[in-house]
Structures are given as structure tokens and as C-alpha cells.
């Protein structure tokens, strides 16, 4: 739970809420074609994820947020660039929405999806 104060009391933001923001922004990021479950055995990655916290891990220590993303990337794109773009977008969106600094976004590329082999 991340906690903030206002003049009437406290505001709590759950890890799940942070994960939802991260997940939405990751899926809109170019080159990312899916999130992968972080615990399932390899190969069971799901391309469309219903659970917003699947594929996203959020750690919050009261001051800083660390986010781990488990993603699937489109084959034929430059993986390093896609990964750093998704990290940038997620960090920016979460910081913009919550006003809490994100100090780490770790990107784990769990697989590639091949739509066109050429």
C-alpha cells in the first residue's frame, strides 16, 4: 500500500492499482505484444492478459516504487529499444498518475511472438 496524506486523512494506493497503470501503459507501448505470467513455466505465456497484475510486479517501500515487467515482444523489432521505451513509458505514466517517483523499472523479456518470419 502506498500512503499519502491530505488534510482529511490518508490516501492509500494499492500495489494492484499501480500494477494496473503499468500494465495498461505497457500494452500501449510499441513493440510489446503481450505480458507473460511471472511464475508460470516458460511457454505458458498468455498473450492477452485479463488480470492487471499478471506480468507486472510492484514493490513499494514507502518512498520509491520498483516495477518488474514480464513482456513478450514482436519478433523483428529491436529488443533493446522496445525494452527501454516500455520502461520509459511505464515510469512516466505511473509517476504522472501517482506523483510518486519510480526508481526502477526492470524489464524481463519472456518471449518473442513471430507474426511474420522473413
Amino acid at each position: 500500500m502506498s500512503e499519502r496524506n491530505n488534510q482529511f486523512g490518508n490516501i492509500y494506493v494499492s500495489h494492484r492499482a499501480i500494477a494496473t497503470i503499468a500494465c495498461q501503459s505497457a500494452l500501449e507501448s510499441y513493440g510489446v505484444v503481450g505480458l507473460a505470467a511471472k511464475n508460470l513455466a516458460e511457454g505458458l505465456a498468455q498473450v492477452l492478459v485479463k488480470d492487471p497484475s499478471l506480468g507486472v510486479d510492484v514493490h513499494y517501500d514507502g518512498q520509491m516504487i520498483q516495477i518488474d515487467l514480464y513482456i513478450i515482444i514482436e519478433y523483428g523489432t529491436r529488443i533493446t529499444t522496445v525494452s527501454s521505451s516500455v520502461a520509459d513509458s511505464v515510469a512516466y505514466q505511473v509517476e504522472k498518475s501517482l506523483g510518486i517517483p519510480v526508481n526502477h523499472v526492470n524489464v524481463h523479456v519472456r518471449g518473442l511472438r513471430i507474426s511474420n518470419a522473413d
Partner: protein
Amino acid sequence: MSTKKKTTPDLVELTSKPCTTLDGQGFKTLIEAAMTWVKTNQQTINALNVFPVPDGDTGTNMLLTMQAAYNEIASSGENNVGKIAHAVAQGALMGARGNSGVILSQIWRGFARGLDSLDTLNAQVFATALDESRATAYKGVVRPVEGTILTVIKDVSIAAKKITAETEDLIEILEHIVTAADESVQHTPELLPILKQAGVVDSGGKGLFFLLEGMLRHLKGLPLETPTATVLPLASMKLDEAMEGVEPGQDYEVVIDFRPNEPLNLEKYYEGLGEIGTSIQVGEGDGMYRMHIHVPTEKRYEPIEYTLKLGTITKVAMENLLAQMEEQQGKNDQKINLAALESGHIAVVAVSPGKGISRIFASLGVAAIVEGGQTMNPSTEEILHAFENLHTDKVIILPNNKNIILAAQNAATLTVKKVAVIPSSTVPQGLSAMLRLVGDADFDHVVSEMNEAIHEVETGEVTIATRTVEINGVDVKSGEVIALLNGKLVNAEPTLEEACEKLLKSAKTEDRERITIFYGNNISKNEVNKIVDDIRLIYPNHEFELHDGGQPHYQFIFMIE
């Protein structure tokens, strides 16, 4: 830039007769034209960048991607248009920078697939290829966001299909497509609310428009090196970021709102302003114009007098940039946050020559920073003081300069704590060692890991020689730019560019993967960008990181991994 100035006589000929097919070499000149036109309009594209992250680099990213693409074919004599397109796609893929670059690489990939291995490109093939571009681009994302470059390539492919049913002439087709791209770009704020809020059109979409327009301009024989004087929408003038590019001779920022008496001749207006100052921007809305310029102190009233001749001035704002810069720097100075050290964990003390470098060390988790470096060596006491009060008895010191190693070793003997000095003689060595830190691991193990790590990077340093001398067989004249590789003098050149390029060559950079560049406090951001762009061109497939190191003396420190 390696692009040669294009002379146009051979193209004038093209315009007189309809052009219906293109071979590999013809297509190559189109790619070069597209790249040149994006380069010319790079800053315009950058200024529009608000989505997904407003970091103002879309134009630069698209240009670097196009440069990498063109590099693949620059020296190719291939006549098969399909092969050229595949090489372009390959280059774009390897050199893709940023979001827009990745999308652009997908567009080329689709385009190449559409051309397959055809010898020549004609209207029909062009339409098919653009449709493949659209399909491939859309496949790369789960939730395509409309109102971006994706929307523009979609509209372009639809327009291409329609027009190719009517004519075979590629110039006519491109003309139609460029118009469609322009309309699509103008429509992006209606699809993406964040663009509307910011009062801009989509930057990536605009970049794609420039790519296509560059091709068209080339076919029509229009110049590609000078930007058409552009009027930005008022809201997209980034006046609050004026601080970014401030340099000596740009002491004042002047913003003038005015209503011209006669329709404004923009080219001429720009020309007149160009003689007074730099960073010129002109915006328009409802017949009202806003002009923005940076000028030296003694010329601060000239833009006003000049504009007065053209119309009625309604408002003038003038700010002293130098004073603001100093204030801003004062703020930046306080912002280094060191990570809290867990009691009993290994603490690292790093010696850092500049604010920017300190910030990077802080982000890697050093427990204390001592300021110092070339010609400002910290004393043994200063180093001792930095770690004496830390809640741990295990300390590692990174001196990051060979003249400081001794002071650090002395400090180690004056304490009861267990201290190891890693003999890092440059900042990159220190950073490399820092990456091996595991706070709660075995002390000796971490120390030996770090000792290994410092040999895994090459360090390049560039500075100006203060005296005439001969070292290592290199003749150096005072005032020349000298380059040091791992502390050894390797060359002396008249310019920074040459020194940097030769240095990277001596460091066998082509066998490495990543170049991190820290620029000093004695070089302007514009100069840095120019040099770094040149280097990127030489090593299109390397990863680059650019940081404001803030170190004195050294214009550049390179970390080559």
C-alpha cells in the same frame, strides 16, 4: 553527415516526363532525400513530442534510425529495388532508436516484404508495399494508439491504393500521398486528446510526413538542405524550455507578440532575425504572431525595433537567461540523494569530479561521495571523514583518478574499519566496479570482483592541451585537443570531433557494444549533440548513453564496454 550536397540538374529532367518506375539506385536516392529532409526538420519534429513520454527526441530518433537505414545501402550499387528495400529494413531494425524509430523500422520491414525481390518499383507495387507497411506496423502492438504515426501510415496506404488506380506517374502518386499524410497529421489531435491539450500534432506522424515529403521534393528537384520557414501552432512553442540551449552570446530571451500590417513574408522575417540572434521560433494563431529569439545583451532591443517596422507590437517579454541559468544550477546542485546504507552492509565511497557523475554514482548506490579529481585532489582527511561516520565497518573506496589512489590508501591505514581501495584510475573504471557491488555479500569476494571489473572497460578522455610537449611519441601543441586512452596519450588533433573519432578508433570501439559519454562543464550542449551525432553515424549499431557529467577540464569522458 555524410550526405553529399545534391545538385539537381538530373532531376529536372525527371519532372518533365512522367516517372513510372524506380530501380534500386533510384530508390536509394529517395531514401537519402527522405533522411536529409528529416534531418533538416529534426528540431520541428522534436518540438512536437508529447506522447508517450514528452522527452523531445522524436525527430532525433527518427533521423538516427534513417541514418542507420541509409548506411546499409550508402555504398551499394545494387539495382534490384527489393534488395535495396530489404537492406534499408535491416539497417532500420539494427539502428532503431526510441518508439518512433521502432515503428519506422517496422514500416520499412513491411515495405521490403511488399517489394519482395522485384527488380523495379511501379505504382501498383508501391501501393502494395505501403499496405504491407501498415499491416506490419499495426502488428507490433497489442493496443494501437490512434492519432500517432500508426494512423498516418494507415491513411497513407489507403490514399496510395486509391490514387494508383488512377495514375501510373510516381510523382503524382507521391504528391497525393504527401497531401494525405499532411491531412492525417493535422487530424491527429482529434484522435489523441493529449495532443489536443498540448496544442500540437503528433510528432512521429509529422516525421513520417517529412520522410514522404523529402522523397517528393527530391523528385521535383526542390532543395532539401534548408528548412521551409515554419510557423508552429502557438501552443507548441516550447518557451519554458528556453534554458536548454543557452550559450554564451545568448544572454537574453525576447518574446514579442505582434500583428503584422501586411501578410508576413516569413522567409524574409527569419532572415532578418537570423542576423540578430539564435533559437528563432515563430508561432501563429488568429492572425496574431509570436516570435521568440535568444540575443546577446547589446542586441536585446533590436528584435523589437525590427518587428516594429512590420506591424503593431502588443506585448514584449524579456528575460535574462544567464541569471536564470545560475539559479537553475543552484537548484540542481542540491539534488544528489544517496541511498540509505543498511547497517553492516558494505559501504562504497566514490571520488567524483562532477555533479552529473556524482548523481550516477548515487543512483548505483554509493554510500558517500567525495568531490575531487584532476587538479583538485581530495585530502586523506576528506576521504576518511566521508566514511568514518557510516554505520558499517566494511568500506570500499573508488578513487577514480590515479593521483588520488595514494590518498585513499592512506585513509585506509588511519581507521579501524576494514577498508579496501580499488585502484580505479578513471571514472568509467569506478562505475564498472560499482556495478559489481552486492551490499551483503562477502567482503573479499566483492573486492576481487571489483578489481576484475576495472579492467573490463576502456576509458577515453578528451581535453585541451595546456602546453606544447611530446609524450608517447605524440607531438602536442598547446591549444590542441588531446585524447587519452586509459590514461595514455594517443593523439592530438586540431578539433574535438577528430580527437573523439581517432580516440574511439584506438579503443577498438568496433569490437565493443556500448559507448557511454559524459560531457563536461566546459562544452555547450549544442556542440555535444553535434559531435555525438557524428560518432553515432560512425558506430550505428552501438548502444549510446549520454550524460551531463559536469566534470571540469575534460570535455568528454568515454566509457567503452
